[in-house]
């Protein structure tokens, strides 16, 4: 029988009585442990591969469109975003992500995937209340904290970074 007290619930099964702490120990014992080393390696390889592809695209823009590396960076990002959106729309990106983990979440392709998947998911609720309102559901916090972090870094730079490169 459950009894919710200040010290937490108890599970009573016949003569056995378990506190939340006891139960946590039991539950943790049965929880499969992720292989962190393998996950890190997969993330390193897949994230690295995405960056390598980006580098190749940038090189193509520089070699064939006569751009400087700075000019080529924006179209490179745009191409990566397009590729990510296409893969998301065909239902492939989430399958890659299950293998790649952080490797496909951290690069710009992960950001594009979060927006595209939210937009697809809310299509049924219409353009305004659905797609428009929900597109930034996941990406919104990246932007908010990105801007806040940039502001803090800017402050640090102004106070301590005098003489630094602007």
């Amino acid at each position, binding site marked *: 029988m459950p009894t919710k007290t200040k010290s937490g619930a108890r599970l009573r*099964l016949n003569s056995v009585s378990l506190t939340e702490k006891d139960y946590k120990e039991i539950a943790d014992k049965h929880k*499969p442990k*992720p292989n962190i080393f393998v996950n890190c390696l997969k993330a390193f390889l897949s994230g690295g591969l995405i960056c390598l592809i980006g580098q190749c695209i940038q090189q193509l823009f520089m070699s064939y469109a006569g751009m400087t590396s700075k000019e080529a960076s924006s179209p490179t990002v745009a191409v990566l975003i397009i590729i990510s959106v296409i893969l*998301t729309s065909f239902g492939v990106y*989430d399958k890659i992500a*299950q293998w790649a983990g952080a490797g496909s*979440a951290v690069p710009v392709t*992960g950001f594009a995937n979060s927006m595209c*998947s939210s937009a697809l998911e809310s299509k*049924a609720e219409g353009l305004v209340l659905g797609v428009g309102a929900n597109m930034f559901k996941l990406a919104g916090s990246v932007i908010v904290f990105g801007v806040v972090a940039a502001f803090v870094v800017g402050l640090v730079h102004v106070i301590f970074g005098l003489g630094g490169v602007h």
Partner: protein
Amino acid sequence: MRLTGSQTWVFESKPAIIGASAVVGPEEGQGPLAGDFDFVYDNLEIDEKTWEKAERKLMEHASALALTHAGISRADLQFFIGGDLMNQIISSTFAARRIGAPYLGVFGACSTSMESLALAALIVDAGGADYALAGTASHNCTVEKQFRYPTEYGAQKPLTAQYTITGSGTAVVSSRAGGPRVTHATIGRIQDLGVKDPFNMGAAMAPAAADTIVAHFRDTGRVPEDYDLIVTGDLASVGHSIVLDLLNRAGVTMSETVLNDCGLMIYDRDKQPFAMAGGSGCGCSAVVTYGHILKKIKKGELNRVLVVATGALLSPLSYQQGESIPCIAHAVALESEEAKA
């Protein structure tokens, strides 16, 4: 009906499940129980434009099939008891428009299958109806959308995560003979042992399952050996091993061949790795019970079965606010038509 012990109903007239059906999506249709389902859709959209309409269609289809199997018309049906995982249980309520019978909507998350079956049996046993329909449905994409991330979002799922099944199971309970009998129902209590991780539902729900199983044996005086199969709803691999551990500690011993879990039965996790720890969702225990288990009882391969459907009663809001997950389990005892008391 009479109450025995603290929380178990004994249905003295033993209402029969005279017709049942399980309708599933393509992924369940490739699983080990494929042959037992009454209809398998070959597309996840279930030929509809939105996921919500797809879920409703599964329920409408399963209800229509169950009535056909029971040999009764829509006009004969006296009550419909249903529920699902959507906000405001829209799938069953909207399906009830087409079913037309007087309707009671219930919510027990994934325990809804046995909650609705217990209530339908209660109504029939009390003489309140000759035909009552119990049913539930879930769709992978509606549930992921509401409780987790967008379907196509690339987040790596942990090993404890479960996969919501796409399917609907319904059953017609009747005072007329002609099918497996519903003999007991043990209504569960909420158990909350402080698990907060919505990606580890098995660990959250296992205490509720263990509590209801222990209560069922205490109330009825039965022992595990009285059942050919005791099956939990959707604990999947993690919750299944925890519940075995808890029951062992409580002195309720059973070999693994007797205790199984619908979430483990519905997919072949080696060939269908997307299922991670196993299946979950309202439809999980419903399609396994109404598709697979009832057929085995009818064939005489199983005589007596206890289905313990488990539900995690969280909302997206509650876990974002850091609340732990209250869980529940309802058990219903089924037996073959010829079984001796």
